[in-house]
């Protein structure tokens, strides 16, 4: 398993290809991990750009430390991953759902490391975000604490579902993730307006977070917004081909990096005895 130490935490990375530009994929919260991007867009992107995926702290095969889950610190994790892989050129960040919050925070706090943002159904940490977030997280917590749900998971859930549920339980019970995220400050319109890199935003018209798409497009002068008809929050899994078309077309229009490296598969990682 490929791991790097980033911001003091052991992070699982998949460096699929090297070259310019670099595209970093960021997944969503709780039940998600890097495999959702790995299954939908990352391999195709790796044929045209340098591609890196990583598991957020507490997710997938990354370490699950008890603290450090603030948006600000998770942006530092991402910068730490870039540093560990020697990726110094500004990168395009593509975030799904909560991953969009991390991408935006990177653009604000580390603008010299970000070439552009691709936000897919992104949560935006504007006013009201925490209420929505709290609702979603509490709901997840209730489902897992409910005895009947546990019995159901044990009986019919199978190994896969049980393991996914157990990991979410660990995140909720043994880390300060929820408290730290709820305490993370909201972004102001002024902050959003200060982002100068190009931004592509893609939302479904039936998404529960479509309101944020309009806020984003209004506050961000560099934002190109695509609203997909008859799509919900799960655009990435429901319409991966359509999503790829929009993202590749947009990326092809962006200015080429000053120093362009050809795209090629990243060298195979040295075998590690650490098992996930």
């Amino acid at each position, binding site marked *: 398993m490929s791991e790097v130490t980033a911001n003091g935490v052991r992070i699982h990375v998949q460096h699929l290809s090297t070259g310019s530009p670099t595209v970093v994929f960021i997944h969503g919260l709780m039940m998600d991990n890097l495999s959702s991007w790995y299954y939908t867009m990352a391999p195709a992107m790796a044929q045209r750009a340098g591609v890196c995926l990583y598991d957020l702290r507490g997710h997938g095969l990354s370490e699950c430390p008890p603290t450090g889950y603030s948006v600000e610190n998770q942006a530092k994790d991402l910068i730490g991953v870039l540093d560990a892989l020697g990726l110094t050129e500004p990168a395009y960040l593509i975030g799904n759902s909560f991953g969009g919050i991390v991408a935006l925070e990177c653009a604000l706090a580390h603008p010299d490391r970000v070439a552009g943002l691709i936000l897919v159904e992104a949560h935006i940490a504007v006013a009201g975000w925490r209420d929505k977030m709290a609702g979603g997280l509490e709901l997840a917590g209730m489902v897992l604490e409910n005895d009947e749900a546990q019995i159901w998971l044990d009986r019919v859930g199978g190994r*896969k579902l049980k393991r996914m549920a157990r990991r979410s339980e660990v995140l909720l019970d043994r880390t300060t993730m929820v408290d730290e995220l709820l305490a993370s400050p909201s972004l102001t319109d002024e902050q959003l307006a200060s982002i100068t890199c190009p931004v592509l935003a893609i939302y479904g018209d039936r998404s529960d977070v479509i309101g944020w798409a309009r806020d984003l497009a209004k506050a961000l002068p560099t934002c190109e917004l695509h609203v997909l008809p008859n799509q919900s929050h799960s655009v990435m899994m429901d319409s991966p081909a359509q999503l790829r078309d929009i993202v590749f077309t947009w990326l092809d229009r962006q200015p080429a990096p000053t120093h362009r490296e050809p795209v090629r598969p990243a060298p195979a990682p040295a075998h590690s005895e650490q098992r996930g």
Partner: protein
Amino acid sequence: MAAHTDTAPGQAGEAAWTQDAILAAVATLVGEVIGEDYLEGIPITMATSFADDIEMESIEFVALAERVRERFGDKVDFIGWLAEMELDEIMGLTVGQLVGMILACLTS
């Protein structure tokens, strides 16, 4: 573990990989990724489905891809193979499809 020794096919001076040898090697890698304890009693055949038969988690499939690259080398373009597939095709993959891809890469 027979297919994971220094005398496995594909090593310098050894015979070329066969479908059976690749299947045995892939079965070993699957066991390493999801745990031999869980696999006990479940035969890995060409018809085995990763998602349905052995309930491999998607993150485990990612780990398997990495081990395939380590085991068979850069000639096996796992990522290029996935790049041509849609989500439902990946979800429906069988061991046999993976073995076939590896064999094609190694003998091309």
